[in-house]
């Protein structure tokens, strides 16, 4: 199993451009998440999904959009990129069933985005 994969690894955008960060998981997890991580700031939740067709906002959703058409894929769309969106973006997934392991998250390697 590849686990959680993200593309691209690095990207430089100009202000006002748009892009989609791709995320795929092959663990048949029902929950998926997008986080951003700024230096010294920990992980901030952008959006999450509890299953195909269902998404919800996290702590910092402004400037982003998501969709979940399949269990495996959870792309993050940036419209009109701004310098404040310069960050490292992580996708994660978890199986939210029963038992002690239900909150464990598995992360992708991240996408480092710079907006100039």
């Amino acid at each position: 199993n590849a686990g959680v994969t993200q593309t691209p690894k690095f990207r430089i955008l100009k202000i006002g451009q748009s892009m989609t960060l791709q995320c795929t998981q092959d663990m048949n997890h029902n929950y998926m998440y997008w986080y951003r991580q700024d230096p010294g700031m920990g992980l901030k939740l952008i959006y999450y999904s509890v299953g195909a067709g269902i998404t919800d906002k996290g702590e910092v959703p402004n400037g982003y959009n998501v969709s979940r058409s399949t269990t495996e894929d959870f792309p993050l769309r940036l419209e009109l990129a701004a310098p404040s969106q310069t960050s490292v973006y992580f996708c994660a997934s978890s199986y939210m069933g029963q038992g002690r392991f239900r909150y464990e998250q598995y992360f992708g390697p991240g996408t480092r985005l710079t907006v100039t």
Partner: protein
Amino acid sequence: TQLLEQSPQFLSIQEGENLTVYCNSSSVFSSLQWYRQEPGEGPVLLVTVVTGGEVKKLKRLTFQFGDARKDSSLHITAAQTGDTGLYLCAGPSSFGAGTTVTVRA
């Protein structure tokens, strides 16, 4: 959102020394996870604790969940340079800001 506070924010020690990092909250948690993140990579799950007073060992790492399930600690014995990284605790809906651990050779 359940807030998690981690301390210290930064920790730098010599190889061979011991260290402890803490994760505290005013809320009770049904479970708590610890992750390690190395530079340029995503966080990797280390352990889940669910029972008050639970102690779990992972080689030189010892994790403890407080009796009241509001706090947790991670103790590393005889730290190695490979232990360098950002250590994050997480509850069901939030992550702490992390402790950056640097182990010097």
